[in-house]
C-alpha cells in the first residue's frame, strides 16, 4: 500500500472540508473494499478521510414511515437491530448474510452503496425498497442513485450521511452467493410497496437494476406461480468464470420466486 495523509474528522462538515482540501482524497468508511484495493495498489489516494469518528453518522432510528440508518452503521448493527427487524425484517436478513461476521463488524451501509459494487447486496434493497439517500448536500431517490458499474449519482465532495427506508407491506431478499466470496452471483430483492411491486436485481449485470418484467408479472398476483414460464432475457448480463449470462438469467427467475415465497 502506498502511504497517504490520514484525517479523522469528528463532523461531516470537517470531513467535507478535508476532502475538498485533498488533491486525490478518498473517504474511508468500513474499509472492507477500499483497503484491499489500496493494498493491491489499484487505488492510490493522497489523503484518507476516516469517517469512523463521526458519531452523527452511526445508528438506526425509527421514522414515521420506516427506518433511517446512518451511513456509518455496520452490517452487524443492521442485522441485529430491533428497529430494522420490526419494520423491514428482509433488510436485517440481507445484512446478516453479507460476507462473514468480521466483515459485517466493519463494513457499512454507506460504504457499500457509495462503492456500488455490481455484486453487493445493499444496492438491491435500496432500489427495491425505494429508499432515499441523504447526503451532506441533498437527498437522492434510489431510482436516480445507481448509475453504472461502481458509479453513482454522488458528486465530487458529496458524502452520504444516511439512508431512509420506507416500510414495505411485504419484502424479501434471496441470493445465490458465490461459494467463496459470498458476493451475490445473483440476488433478487422483491418488495410490495405503497407505489406497487418493486424488484431489484444485483450480481447479474454491471449495475443493480429493476426487473420490470417481473414487477409487471407480480403486480396483479404476488405469488411465485405468477412467475411460472417467465423467460428472462440474458442480453447485457455478466459473463465471467463463475457463470454465463444465460445461467444468471435463469437464476434471476429462481431467486425472484424464492424471494416472493419468503416475503413477509
Amino acid at each position, binding site marked *: 500500500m502506498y502511504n497517504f495523509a*490520514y484525517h479523522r474528522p469528528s463532523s461531516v462538515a470537517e470531513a467535507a472540508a478535508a476532502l475538498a482540501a485533498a488533491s486525490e482524497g478518498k473517504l474511508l468508511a468500513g474499509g*472492507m473494499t477500499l483497503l484491499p484495493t489500496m493494498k493491491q495498489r489499484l487505488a492510490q489516494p493522497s489523503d484518507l478521510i476516516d469517517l469512523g469518528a463521526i458519531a452523527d453518522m452511526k445508528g438506526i432510528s425509527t421514522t414515521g414511515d420506516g427506518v433511517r440508518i446512518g451511513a456509518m452503521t455496520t452490517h452487524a448493527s443492521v442485522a441485529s437491530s430491533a428497529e430494522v427487524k420490526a419494520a423491514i425484517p428482509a433488510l436485517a436478513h440481507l445484512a446478516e448474510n453479507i460476507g462473514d*461476521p468480521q466483515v459485517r463488524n466493519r463494513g457499512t451501509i454507506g460504504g457499500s452503496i457509495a462503492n456500488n459494487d455490481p455484486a453487493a447486496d445493499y444496492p438491491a434493497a435500496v432500489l427495491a425498497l425505494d429508499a432515499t439517500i441523504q447526503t451532506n448536500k441533498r437527498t437522492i431517490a434510489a431510482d436516480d442513485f445507481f448509475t453504472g458499474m461502481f458509479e453513482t449519482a454522488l458528486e465530487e465532495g458529496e458524502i452520504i450521511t444516511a439512508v431512509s427506508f420506507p416500510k414495505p407491506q411485504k419484502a424479501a431478499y434471496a441470493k445465490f452467493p458465490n461459494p467463496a466470496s459470498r458476493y451475490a452471483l445473483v440476488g433478487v430483492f422483491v418488495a410490495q410497496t405503497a407505489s406497487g411491486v418493486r424488484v431489484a436485481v444485483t450480481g447479474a449485470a454491471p449495475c443493480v437494476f429493476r426487473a420490470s418484467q417481473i414487477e409487471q408479472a407480480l403486480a396483479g398476483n404476488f405469488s411465485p406461480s405468477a412467475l411460472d414460464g417467465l423467460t428472462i432475457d440474458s442480453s447485457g448480463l455478466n459473463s465471467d468464470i463463475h457463470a454465463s449470462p444465460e445461467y444468471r438469467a435463469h437464476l434471476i427467475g429462481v431467486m425472484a420466486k424464492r424471494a416472493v415465497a419468503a416475503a413477509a
Partner: protein
Amino acid sequence: MPTVSMTVNGKAVSAEVEERTLLVSFLRDSLGLTGTHVGCDTSQCGACVVHVNGDSVKSCTMLAVQAEGANVTTIEGLASGEELHPVQKAFREHHGLQCGFCTPGMVMSAVDLLQKKKSPSEAEIREWLEGNICRCTGYHNIVKAIQAAAGAM
C-alpha cells in the same frame, strides 16, 4: 508520522506508525504480539482476527490509526496468567487444531460468537466460522471444541 494510542490486552500502548500501517503489523511488529497471524492478507482467511472494542475484526484490513483510542484484545490477552481461557482449553482438549496456524483467529472468532450467543447450534457455529479458514482439520474438532466451550462458559 502520527502517534497512535490504544489499549491492547488491558495495557495502554502508544507508538509512532506510518499512516498505512495495518493493525496486524502494529500488533506484531511494534508490540511483538506475534500470536496474531497474517495468513492471506486479503481479509478472507481469518488468521488475523482480533477484537476491537469487543467485536471480532480482521486486523489485516484495518489501519492501526483507525484503532486510535480503541480497546484491542489479541490471543495473548485471553488467558489469565497460567489459566487458559475456556475456548483455548476446549481447543486443546478436543484437538481443535493440527498445524495451529489458523488457531489464534479461530479462537478469537469463537470467543466473539460465544459473547453474542451463549449456546449456539452446530449450524450456527459453522456459519459463524465463514470467515475463518482451516486447511488441516476439516473443522469437525473445531466445532466440537466451540460446543464444549459454550457449555463450560
